[in-house]
């Protein structure tokens, strides 16, 4: 594994990137001329050197800062320094996401609007594994456990990513990438606790197979999370407390130009199937990847996984899903002006449901299949101009083959800033909640809502335009304007409702973010979102049709200060403001999170975390009278690397 690329120093795929440490925008910066490298590498600090990217293993290109898309990268280091105690809280670091907490463990997360607790236009992957439920094409955020210390980075792409990632990547993609086992060696104990809950994790990383020359590294980790009940505004307790246990493992090894990884996770949690806000859940998944980097610069990777998830909720979803997936990506040798990637994949899920008080699925068990092929070519038309053409064909069990094309262009200006534009078509394919679904309300004779046999994919045609300021160590910023035209949005006929595609409309908006490194020890970063939705439903549609398409703020801003107070103490403060939500009406709120940490010794860090510092509590998504107040929370945290 080591030095593999040094043996072939002239191959074009050896393009290597640096991560801009300390920049909120941190993305990979592209190489222009390699000659200066020597001199400047010697000036990097140890921390910077440890973040220099030297090669990439998978065929899938890494999102780069110069990509023609709206991309924000949350680095593991950003998460470690933030007040986040869970994956959804870490996602608040991305200015291009809307993250609303519903109660102790549940969240509504979206990009570019359409946020909903059954939000379905965002594709979420953990190490390449799709984590959305085929029941509703959305994510059960309370079931996704990741040890935060294991996260290498989270790539958040707002806007369509359908060509590379597939259907459902209509409004965005969240790509969570865990650290390779070699980066998590030794023992780590991490614990945080406060009146509202606790997270305790342990991790051990070691080596195997050293004598055979295969350089294997592995880690195992375990986490227990507990959350106490939240409260309504009137002080009444909400029964959403729960405990969740998670275990994870990862092994990475190599053999010549071949690299292998085995990643597994399992979890069990919740409180009781009689508690809709903390239902019983469990799951396990195992994934293997095999990648080969050839000396001619081409590479390929093969990924297969098995995933099982069970959720037992007596009111809505009582289900078990088993998914098997295989996919192959290949970057072939091409003329220098082209960067081609193509791939194919097949995924199969068996979704088994049991009827609950409100939800029935008919048939109760259904096998769903998806298969895809895609091809993307990034063409360097001239030195400053790059054009990317891509097409994905993806088939699903409900609507057959969907076409997902994209056309992107990026132009680098003389001052090294760049402008980019993109046109894409993305679809949200039907899920079981659209087709096989029956909603019963006790007291009503028949189903109140019925899945629609005629429901087809929701379609978005998207135009985006962006500007990215010149990359430098002090100031970085990015602006994106977008226009989405939606057709065939999910809306049903008036009562008794049959689900259909009776709504359409447009959204326009702006995404802006930037970071300013004021000094070597102080950085400010900020983000701004503005969204204007104009959605319509047919006269025959149910009255709540447009409201059901998401409850979104018109604007959102965030500001974050990251500072080192001397050699051992760091202080991070993050303020976010979310404007009022229309229906149900939720007032605007401003929340301030703080983390003050002391590196007591090279091996131990102690920290004080305060979420909602100036706010005793606020609702984030549901009507305030009936919503859990998201309270001020205080945690003490300790991270200890054991010798």
């Amino acid at each position, binding site marked *: 594994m080591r030095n593999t690329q040094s043996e072939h120093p002239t191959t074009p795929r050896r393009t290597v990137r640096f991560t801009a440490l300390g920049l909120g925008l941190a993305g990979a910066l592209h190489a222009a001329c390699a000659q200066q490298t020597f001199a400047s590498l010697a000036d990097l600090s140890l921390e910077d050197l440890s973040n220099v990217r030297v090669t990439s293993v998978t065929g899938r290109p890494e999102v780069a800062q110069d990509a023609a898309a709206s991309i924000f990268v949350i680095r593991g280091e950003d998460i470690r320094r933030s007040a986040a105690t869970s994956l959804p809280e870490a996602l608040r670091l991305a200015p291009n996401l809307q993250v609303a907490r519903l109660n102790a463990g549940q969240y509504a997360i979206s990009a570019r609007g359409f946020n909903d607790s059954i939000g379905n236009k965002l594709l979420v992957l953990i190490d390449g594994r799709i984590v959305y439920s085929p029941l509703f094409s959305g994510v059960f955020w309370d079931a996704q456990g990741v040890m935060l210390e294991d996260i290498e980075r989270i790539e958040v792409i707002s806007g369509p990513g359908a060509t590379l990632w597939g259907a459902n990547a209509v409004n965005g993609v969240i790509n969570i990438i865990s650290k390779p086992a070699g980066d998590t060696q030794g023992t780590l104990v991490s614990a945080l606790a406060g009146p509202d809950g606790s997270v305790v994790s342990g991790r051990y990383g070691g080596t195997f197979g050293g004598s055979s020359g295969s350089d294997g590294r592995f880690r195992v980790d375990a986490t227990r999370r507990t959350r106490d009940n939240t409260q309504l505004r009137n002080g009444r307790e909400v029964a959403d407390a729960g405990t969740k246990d998670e275990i994870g493992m990862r092994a990475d090894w190599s053999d010549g130009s071949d690299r292998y990884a085995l990643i597994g996770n399992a979890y069990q949690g919740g409180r009781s199937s009689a508690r809709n806000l903390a239902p019983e859940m469990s799951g396990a998944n195992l994934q293997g990847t095999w990648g080969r980097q050839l000396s001619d610069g081409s590479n390929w990777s093969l990924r297969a996984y098995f995933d099982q998830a069970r959720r037992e909720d007596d009111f809505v979803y009582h289900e078990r899903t088993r998914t098997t997936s295989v996919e192959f990506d290949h970057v072939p040798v091409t003329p220098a002006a082209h960067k081609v990637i193509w791939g194919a994949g097949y995924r199969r899920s068996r979704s088994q449901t049991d009827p609950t008080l409100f939800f029935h699925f008919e048939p109760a068990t259904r096998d769903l299949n998806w298969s895809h092929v895609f091809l993307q070519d990034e063409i360097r038309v001239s030195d400053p101009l790059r054009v990317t053409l891509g097409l994905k064909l993806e088939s699903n069990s409900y609507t057959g083959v969907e076409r997902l094309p994209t056309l992107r262009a990026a132009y680098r200006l003389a001052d090294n800033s760049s402008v980019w534009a993109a046109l894409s078509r993305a679809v949200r394919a039907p899920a079981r909640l659209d087709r096989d679904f029956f909603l019963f309300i006790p007291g009503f004779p028949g189903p109140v809502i019925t899945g629609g046999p005629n429901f087809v994919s929701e379609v978005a045609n998207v135009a985006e335009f962006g500007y990215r300021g010149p990359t430098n160590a002090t100031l970085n910023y990015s602006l994106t304007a977008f226009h989405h035209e939606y057709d065939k949005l999910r809306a049903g006929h008036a009562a008794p409702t049959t689900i259909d595609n009776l709504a359409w409309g447009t959204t326009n908006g702006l995404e802006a973010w930037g970071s300013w490194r004021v000094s070597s020890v102080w950085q400010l970063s900020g983000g701004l979102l503005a969204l204007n939705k104009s959605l319509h439903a047919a006269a025959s549609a149910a009255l709540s049709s447009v409201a059901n398409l998401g409850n979104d703020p018109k604007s959102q801003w965030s500001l974050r200060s990251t500072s080192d*107070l001397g050699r051992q103490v760091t202080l991070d403060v993050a303020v976010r403001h979310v404007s009022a939500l229309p229906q149900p009406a939720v007032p605007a709120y401003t929340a301030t999170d703080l983390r003050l940490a002391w590196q007591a010794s090279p091996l131990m860090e102690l920290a004080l975390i305060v979420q909602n510092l100036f706010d005793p509590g606020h609702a984030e998504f549901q009507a305030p009278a009936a919503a859990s107040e998201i309270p001020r929370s205080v945690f003490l945290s300790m991270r200890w690397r054991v010798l």
Partner: protein
Amino acid sequence: MRRRSRAWLAAGLLALAGGAAAQSNAAAQAHVATPANAATADQVKAAYLYRFGAYVEWPPGAFAQPDAPFVLAVIGAERVHTELLALAAGRTVQGHRVIVQHLTPRQTPIEAHLVFLGGDLRDDVAGVLTTLQGRPVLVVTDLIEGIPGGAMLNFVVTTDRVRFEASPAAAEKAGLKMSSRLLTVAVRVVEAP
């Protein structure tokens, strides 16, 4: 009104954080621009070898005179040596002019302050470490067996980054002291072998 005062409080806190950071800035090192260039793992390793010198304390006797050079010896690892020559030319470590030597496993790097043993020297490591035992020489390896074998620092190439593991105990045995900053960046800190 309440909400507004909260926003001001938040703004005040941000300013406070920044002010405090600015205060401590004076003591901190000068800011370094991150280059946007290409690098190979060998270049990064060479840069580390040069930078390690600033984060380790050598005993007073390690330098014969105040103006004695800082000697970096590379054994094997031809490419890392080439990169290091280019990278360290004209530079200093803790005020000492840097000299880069390239040795074979049979040569004894007695004058060196830092010795790097390339990954292609699996069978020679033990011998070199025995020769250097007790001398104030920082031994860096590029081998999974490096630290268990007595090295003080060892490179770990992960999927796409070059990191290192550290054994402060091994350094102490040789009379060297690793700074806490070095240990903080280390991907793993290992107890005495």
